[in-house]
């Protein structure tokens, strides 16, 4: 029964997160089944591009942020001095709203964005965004790894394993590979995805609302699409579906990440 429930849960997560996968199929495939006005206005194609870009951002941020988090988490426990320094820096970063960090990161490259073509500008935008998203997700991610790792080392395994002659780096490496820590990593990954999703969409929304001129980030995001079609909510300004479709899909993806977060927490109880 429990296994069946778990299988159903996995199916539900895949279904909810499926917009990210479907976005990789050419939008033309759906041209015949989608309403004609969505196809002709270019909305369908924009929708697919925005979710495709979102999936690239999520995967790129996940990989980059996880590598950095694992490294910082490990080093923080390995050396108390380094750990203390990181804690102070990350605490300072955490006190700044994520959206401001993202905007701040774009400031030094605005000249580059203005002077280069669309392809180079998009790549640079993606790189800067991944960096900004990583910076905003790091404090929580590093803390989530360092706290249980410190607990495992200092309170539990260090005494015996150090007395056997194992070095601290080796003990920490072994502990990083335990089931408990692997569950922690899954939860950290889900947290990074959720936070990046929120940041990506709110950043896209703000860029669409406030900029649009030469030199601003080429950040295609479902958030930008929602901002672009926000007027569709008003009478006689188009179909409200143009606003609600990306919103609902984003909610579905967020719920999928929340289920992943909750699933791991339940298993750790």
């Amino acid at each position, binding site marked *: 029964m429990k296994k069946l429930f778990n299988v159903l849960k996995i199916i539900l997560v895949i279904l909810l997160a499926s917009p990210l996968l479907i976005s990789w199929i050419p939008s033309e495939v759906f041209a015949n089944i989608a309403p004609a006005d969505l196809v002709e206005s270019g909305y369908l194609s924009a929708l697919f591009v925005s979710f495709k870009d979102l999936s690239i951002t999520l995967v790129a941020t996940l990989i980059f942020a996880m590598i950095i988090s694992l490294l910082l988490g490990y080093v923080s426990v390995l050396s108390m001095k380094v750990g203390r320094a990181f804690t102070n820096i990350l605490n300072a970063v955490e006190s700044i709203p994520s959206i401001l960090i993202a905007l701040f990161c774009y400031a030094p490259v605005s000249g580059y964005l203005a002077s280069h073509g669309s392809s180079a500008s998009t790549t640079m935008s993606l790189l800067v965004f991944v960096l900004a998203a990583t910076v905003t997700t790091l404090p929580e991610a590093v803390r989530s790894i360092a706290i249980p790792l410190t607990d495992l080392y200092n309170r*539990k395994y260090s*005494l015996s394993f150090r*007395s*056997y*002659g194992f*070095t601290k*780096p080796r003990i920490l490496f072994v502990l990083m590979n*335990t089931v408990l820590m692997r569950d922690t990593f899954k939860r950290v990954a889900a947290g990074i995805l959720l936070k990046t999703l929120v940041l990506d969409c709110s950043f896209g929304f703000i860029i669409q609302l406030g900029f649009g001129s030469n030199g601003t980030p080429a950040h295609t995001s479902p958030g930008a699409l929602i901002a672009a079609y926000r007027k569709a909510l008003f009478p006689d300004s188009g179909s409200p579906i143009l606003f609600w479709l990306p919103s609902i899909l984003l909610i579905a993806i967020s719920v999928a990440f929340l289920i992943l977060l909750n699933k791991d927490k339940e298993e750790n109880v």
Partner: protein
Amino acid sequence: MTPIALNNFSIHLGERELLKNCNFSLEAGVSTVIMGPTGTGKSVFLKSIAGILSTQIFTFDGAMKVNGFDAYVNGKKSNFASWTEIEKSGLMFVPAETAMVMNPALTLDQNLALLAPGCRPTIVQRLKDYFSMNFEDFARLYPDEVSGGEMQRITLMILLSRQGNLILIDEPTVNLDRNLRKHFVDFLNKEILVDKKKTFLMVSHDLDFIKRLSLDQVYKLEQGNIHKLDTLPEMEGYEKPVAKKGASGTAIELKDVSQTYFKRGIFGERTFTAFKGLSLKFERSTIYGVTGPSGCGKSSMVKAILRLMDGTKGQITMEGKDLVELKPKESGYDPKAFKPFRNRMTVVQQDSRFSFFPDLTIRNSFKQIAKAGAGGTLEDFIENMKKVGLTEANLDEYPQALSSGEMKRIDIARALTQKPDILMLDEAFAHIDFDTRLKVMEAISDYLAVHATILVLVTHEDFDLRYFVEKSYDFPELVGQFEKV
């Protein structure tokens, strides 16, 4: 209403059947203890009643009702809503590791309000009456700001003063020092066991402790069956094994040693003094016992000798070498000059679950440990496991599938296999029943006869002092910090 009623209830751990078709029940208002040898599943049984046993590791058969509510039906654990009802009906569980229930982010007063709402005046009064503690002095402190002994007293009193009708208590003496134990017995007899509105169920292997309590009935859990005992077993049957002697002579000497340590709490780091002015000698082939209240620095002394702590001052000399000078800091590595000493020392720590790799079988863990230079041969390990009452089959089990007592014995077997020159046992017998304990003590004594080892046992149990230790030191007396216990 019957507080606990089992109907053909069984508990399985993989292939092992820890409880077989049990029809045990408890009447309201009675006080009961379940005894039994180490590893029979006493704590597992109690945790199944408390509903905190992992359904991913353990499986069940039959049914159980707690306070009239279905806890398990046809081997299936009831849902969260049912267990919430059970908890609301008055179920109180006191784990062996009491301090773990405290939330480190809350003050002791906030923890009290969360764990035992409306019971503050009773707790304050009881702490004053039985442990001579003024709670107001601690109320605004966080758990990491009080000593282990103080924390234990406060937590026990909070957990046992909650409102409820069914008290489940798991091996309460495992972490209690001798002084605290006396007061705790007094408290249980005067406040808990006289209250016939409450049903009391305890599991313990500590016959010495059980004998001092006014309990109504005694059961024994053996080979998956619970049966009632008419009288408590006698303790007179035990005999101190004859200590066998190897070569003698001073082997390690501590001269004016003091130890400080850092404690990282949620509000940063603080420096504490574990002990100061410690001077003593440990000779080979003598069984030394070190006693003292929780938090007085006994375990820190063990870590200082093993050179696994920063902040040691003074001299710890062995064979003319000062170990503190050879390794002044614990940075996670051993300097080259200290490495030969490292391989000659071993420790059996308080919680032996953490002496083996968490995701490896005991066999594979041992292979890794042996590779690191602290193992000996697998054949010797198996031989020592048999000496401490275990079988070769235990080698292929994972740490989480073994009881605390079994893990302790495996750790002791591992330590003996290493053939150390310095063997430090930190509360090494805490989870082992007395019969098995004598067997383990004999195995250690046999080892001492062949290897002239420095053996230091940190303990708070009278049994160990009576039946094992040859020379005992009262730690607070040694360091002059506290009054004589």
